[in-house]
């Protein structure tokens, strides 16, 4: 019995190791291609480990006259941080009364907001685009930041979390004479750090990796990094070393976020109340 269990452990471990290798292979190939001279990218037999590693692809890609990777990186970082900041602020201020206060129309408004989650995103694409034209927001940061800001996932998630905070804590602060804002700042926020960080990571990644919307509302120097990198793929269509260098640069910032926030991802998915 014991031996059988040990054997099944080994089989399972081997299976997982093969799967993990398959999952990592494309990323390994991206990095390894990016540090090969162009002539080494398509040789037979394949060079698993680059024999003549070089950074020339990265240097060329970062200096490319018609691919402003650094500018695109700034655009992506700026819009993702700005979006996340305002999205968190709005979600906190909307979730708080919906979870903790009693007032006329509260449940009706909550259900109205919630029902908007049913609307598929494609229905917003054309009208949002035409609104951006009317506002003269094409090719501006406004177009990248504002149209998605009223999404209610964050409100919903934080409301569910705020509901679990004991009322006694809030009552105690109130007896001490705290205002609503004081209660949020000194009671609700400190207790909600995990939920808020999770939501922050989600909205940052969502904004960073957004593809369809920036593809159409911004161009040239205003592009975000994920869109920019495909634009320049038409230039380096056959130069895979440079293309993979660009791709690696485009995935680096988000990889850094992942390494630091990895714990929150898993916890966060549990927190959103999806687990029941």
């Amino acid at each position, binding site marked *: 019995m014991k031996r059988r269990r040990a054997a099944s452990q080994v089989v399972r471990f081997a299976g997982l190791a093969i799967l993990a290798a398959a*999952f990592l292979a494309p990323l390994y190939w991206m990095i390894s291609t990016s540090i090969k001279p162009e002539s080494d990218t398509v040789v037979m037999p394949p060079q698993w480990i680059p024999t003549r590693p070089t950074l020339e692809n990265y240097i060329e890609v970062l200096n490319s006259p018609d691919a402003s990777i650094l500018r695109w990186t700034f655009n992506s970082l700026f819009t993702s941080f700005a979006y996340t900041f305002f999205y968190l602020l709005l979600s906190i201020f909307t979730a708080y009364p919906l979870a903790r*206060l009693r007032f006329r129309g509260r449940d009706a408004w909550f259900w109205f907001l919630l029902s908007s989650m049913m609307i598929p995103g494609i229905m*917003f694409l054309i009208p949002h685009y035409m609104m951006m034209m009317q506002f003269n927001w094409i090719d501006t940061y406004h177009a990248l930041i504002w149209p998605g*800001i009223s999404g209610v996932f964050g409100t919903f998630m934080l409301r569910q979390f705020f509901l679990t905070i004991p009322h006694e804590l809030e009552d105690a602060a109130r007896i001490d004479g705290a205002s609503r804002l004081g209660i949020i700042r000194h009671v609700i926020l400190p207790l909600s750090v995990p939920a808020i960080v999770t939501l922050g990571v989600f909205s940052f990644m969502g904004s960073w990796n957004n593809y369809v919307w920036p593809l159409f509302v911004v161009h040239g120097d205003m592009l975000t990094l994920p869109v920019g990198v495909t634009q320049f793929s038409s230039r380096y269509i056959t130069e895979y070393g440079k293309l993979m260098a660009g791709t690696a640069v*485009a995935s680096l910032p988000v990889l850094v976020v992942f390494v630091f926030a990895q714990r929150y991802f898993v916890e966060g998915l549990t927190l959103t109340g*999806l687990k029941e």
Partner: protein
Amino acid sequence: MDRATRNRGWERNERRPRVFQFSESNPLSPYLFLIPHAALFLLFTVYPIGFGVYVSLHRWDVLASTQPFVGLEFYRRLLDPNTVQFQFFWKTLLNTLLFVAVSVPLLVGGALSLALLVNRPISGRGFFRAVFFAPNIFAVSVVGLVWRWVLDNQAGLVNIVLDEYLGVRPINFITEQPWAWLSIILATLWWTVGFNMVIYLAALQGIPKTYYEAAELDGASTWAKFSHITWPLLSPTTVFVVITTVIASFQLFGQSLIITGGGPSRSTQSVIMYITEEGFSNFQFSSAAAMAMVLGLIMMLFTVVQFRALARDIGMGAKGDAR
């Protein structure tokens, strides 16, 4: 109230006009909290839906100064087999449905299998979880470019391995069917299966160990434990995972655009790709808006039908939940 209390941070706004005060006694304060989001919600969520309907009922020409009302003309075209819009809209919708039908079972079944594999203790468990989840963080463009390179017709990693080590002739993954679909599905699986896995993992950890211990006392096999305990208790999660995955798969766009460009001969063009082509390349905003409305309604219908069909299987699992 003594001086010490008054000096606390949260007391500071006491001197402001009463209407704008976020205090206990101000009956308006809940509404003050809601106003900023409500304003943006009306502007960017409620208004665009109405505006989208309005656009779809008018002929919106970028160059013309007037936008004449044309009623349901653009919807009628989607039902008239003689129009280009009819032909491509339904063709690309069928492409998308094919993708949904093939990818969703893989993305749900694969995720559950992975979750079961990394749920029980094994060395390196945390590492495996991270590896399976990691591709999720990449933008679809990164995923697309990497896979287009990995599956390149001549020099791609997969073809090199097939040729060099297995003696299989290179396959035109990017430009021939059914390989083009396989490429898109493979890339999608790699990209998103880890997300569903994490949701399943969370659910698996919520199942009390005592259920399994009791079943073991009764001599239940591994399969019996799975089919009588794990699967039924996971069904609310499965409903959630299936619905969100179907919605996500309906939005197929970047993978097709970047890996195959929608080809060969539009066979992997998704319906959202076609809508953006009609809107942003042909400048037919009204026609694109009408298609988006029809597609949106079809997607909503799918969600409702699935929810009902799947929710029937949940039974007590969902009802017993107090939340």
